[in-house]
């Protein structure tokens, strides 16, 4: 069974109850994935490359609908043409049978492709477009599409389908395993060097990696997105390089054997090997740069990549004194200590620089603990930060963590006498709450 048979996709659908059949999306779609009959406008999942070109022009918002389905069960256009309303999300049991188990997903369990987002990178031109492709309802509702006011200006889409060069080739400069040996949870820290090719990135941005060869349908693999885990001046400062945190995927969520295309390609690379890259992507999940701006970072598994990048940038800037008095709070979840990427180096960071909270869901003899549990324990410290316009919140990891984290923030706000509706809207508007889940 190939990857394409078992993968879970976010299928792009049009809400027939809101759509006014204006034809704007069909006229806009660059690949002809949208068609219609006298009843409905529909998206062909086999053609749609999730480039998002149709999303901003839609006058109704009906175009921006997504359902998690096993790829093999994606709704055909014939079925969609019969709809009067969108189907509900598949119930957990139905998905579990195929692939997905949301309860487990929140705790850093095996995703089909660790830190590979559900959509290909192709054409993700703007921050909002990129977000729209991957976010769950909570992110739609609460996640900022704007960066903090003091963010550095990002470069995006320097290499991609609409850029002059579709991709560039980087060289592997390092590849080390960062989870304990002997575990099935095999996470690698991979350094890519760009030589003299321009590829400026900021913490929180991501890049696309194109695995060599073709997929089951004989088409070249689409780019898989990975968050950069090094700061803006490089994994090795002053050199044109960056690092990625990649988890090797060997089983899907149902526990069936499957080899993630890009993750295995990346984890098996040797120093000196070439890697085809697109991007950079992302214009909102960016860090603030003004003095006394605080960071609250909440992540699971390889969702730690952007957090590592931001932490490292602040660590390097420590000696300048610019960020004197700025707080860094990290909530990091994994199955166990051994499965935690960067566990060793994390322990060496001084506690007056970063306040680290680790949650382990599978330590023998200890009760399960999730990031949201730790957040609640730290509510006395988090509440003032929620209210502080200089504190910025970042959430990255598997998508099922999102609801739990938002819930925890809501509870913490309420207990502190803050109105979450007002506060959440303000945080979204001011670029203070960033959600990146996959």
């Amino acid at each position: 069974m190939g990857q394409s048979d078992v993968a879970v996709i976010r299928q792009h659908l049009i809400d027939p109850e809101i759509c006014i059949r204006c034809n704007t999306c069909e006229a806009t779609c660059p690949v002809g994935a949208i068609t219609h009959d006298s009843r409905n406008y529909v998206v062909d999942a086999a053609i749609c490359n999730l480039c998002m070109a149709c999303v901003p022009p839609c006058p109704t918002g009906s175009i921006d609908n997504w359902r998690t389905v096993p790829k093999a069960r994606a709704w055909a256009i014939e079925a969609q043409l019969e709809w009067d309303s969108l189907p509900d999300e598949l119930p957990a049991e139905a998905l579990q049978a195929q692939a997905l188990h949301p309860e487990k997903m929140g705790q850093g369990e095996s995703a089909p492709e660790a830190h590979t987002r559900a959509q290909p990178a192709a054409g993700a031109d703007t921050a909002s477009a990129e977000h729209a492709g991957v976010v769950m309802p909570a992110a739609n509702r609460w996640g900022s599409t704007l960066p903090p006011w003091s963010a550095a200006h990002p470069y995006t889409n320097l290499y991609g389908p609409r850029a002059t060069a579709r991709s560039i080739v980087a060289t592997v400069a390092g590849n080390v395993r960062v989870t304990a040996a002997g575990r099935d949870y095999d996470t690698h820290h991979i350094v890519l060097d760009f030589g003299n090719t321009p590829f400026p990135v900021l913490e929180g941005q991501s890049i696309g990696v194109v695995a060599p060869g073709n997929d089951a349908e004989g088409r070249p693999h689409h780019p898989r997105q990975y968050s950069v885990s090094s700061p803006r001046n490089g994994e090795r400062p002053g050199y044109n390089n960056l690092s990625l945190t990649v988890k090797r995927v060997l089983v899907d969520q149902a526990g069936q054997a499957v080899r993630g295309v890009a993750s295995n390609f990346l984890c098996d690379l040797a120093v000196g090997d070439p890697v085809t890259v697109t991007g950079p992507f992302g214009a909102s999940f960016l860090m603030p740069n003004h003095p006394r701006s605080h960071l609250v970072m909440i992540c699971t598994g390889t969702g730690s990549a952007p957090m590592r990048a931001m932490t490292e940038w602040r660590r390097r800037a420590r000696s300048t004194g610019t960020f004197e008095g700025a707080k860094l709070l990290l909530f990091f979840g994994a199955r166990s200590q051994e499965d935690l990427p960067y566990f060793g180096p994390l322990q060496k960071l001084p506690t007056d620089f970063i306040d680290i909270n680790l949650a382990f869901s599978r330590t023998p003899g200890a009760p399960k603990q999730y990031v949201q549990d730790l957040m609640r324990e730290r509510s006395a410290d988090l509440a003032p930060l929620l209210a502080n316009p200089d504190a910025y919140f970042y959430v990255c990891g598997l998508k099922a963590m999102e609801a739990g984290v938002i819930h925890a923030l809501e509870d913490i706000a309420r207990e502190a006498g803050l109105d979450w509706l007002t506060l959440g809207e303000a945080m979204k508007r001011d670029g203070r709450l960033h959600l990146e889940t996959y």
Partner: protein
Amino acid sequence: MSSINYSDKIPNNVNLSEDRALQRALEQWQPNYLAWWNDMGPEGSQDFDVYLRTAVSVDPQGWAQFAHVKMPDYRWGIFLNQAEQDRKIHFGDHKGEAVWQDVPGEHRANLRRIIVTQGDTEPASVEQQRHLGLTCPSQYDLRNLFQVNVEEGRHLWAMVYLLHKYFGRDGREEGEALLERRSGQQDNPRILQAFNEPTPDWLSFFMFTYFTDRDGKFQLCALAESSFDPLARTTKFMLTEEAHHMFVGESGVSRVIQRTCAAMNQLRTDDPRTLREAGVIDLPTLQRYLNFHFSVTIDLFGADESSNAATFYGSGLKGRFEEGKRTDDHLLHGQTYRVLAVKEGKLVEREVPMLNALNEVLRDDYIRDSIGGVERWNKVIEKAGIAFRLRAPHKAFHRNIGSLAGVRVSPEGQVLSQADWNAQVDQWLPTGADRAFVASLMGRVVAPGQFANWIAPPAVGVNRQPAEFEYIRFN
């Protein structure tokens, strides 16, 4: 080329600064336009900050940028879709030749007339709607009204650009005249009668944007096929904006229906009087408004037999709806089409040369499209479990143009005597009492997140904004 030049006085993606004479002419027209907007644009709104969508380029990423702006500061400008390389004329007698980048002398008068007629509807609808802001049912709806208004303003710019660039002095004079005519004014009215009727209330506005702006869509679609390439490119971009106007109409009516159905279920009644007392618009009244707007709008397509329509098509000035998707010979010589006529007190179909019946062809395409939305409204009623269906009236109902003008026909398509018509017309078209009742509901609701009692909130906010979002800052 596709990004819009905002550094010029007039935002544009047509390299306006390279044509100094044209730039100067348009810069002279610009203050007159702004004076018109201040005079005839939305009443009392010039100082509001409105959450508007502005195009920054004509590609999908660039044309939906949202921000709060004062409407007189809206960046009206000239945006054409990107040119298609080696585009060929694909219908009419010039089929297969290269499209025209300039106006051929023999088609000058007709093209000017087409552009002026289209252009005249744009400021007209702004004028028709200028008082509506005073009775808006919510901030959300007020914002949508203003968005429609500024985009109609931009559509006027699009047409005036074509007049100035391609029609010399005549074009400049037409550009001035577009700012001088006034909707409903006796001595200098707008060209098309439907654009001289007032839009007295929000139900009329929603019906207008659903039905009459859809006429705009079909006219623009037909012009987007034109052999005159600048006209085709202009109208293509206008269509994306027009889609928003139809959305306002379709969702507006749908929300009124939703609210009415909720009240019907709550009060367990379908009695119009009880429902009116509860402050919602009963479904039979909605049907009468629908009948009125549908029939007035299908008149806009013109006479069912028209030699002008044949000329426009044959000479390649105006195609059919989705011309490129049709599989016939795109010449239509010798083909026929059925149009309605009255013979011995009955409606009968007559075969006429298709070229002469192209207005009717477009009208029938329009009717098919607009009935789709009526069926979607019925889904809302169905979902509420109520046995009532809205229906588009018969094509011959309440017509004032073409061979059906003045013939008395019921919404079901039965030819009636004048006496029968008089006896029943109050069941079919809004009465003075209906209009007075709807007007009585029109109170201004502007607190963020609040909606008037007669309309349900929308399913999704503009640009995904939450329900309580402050779309308008009243300052």
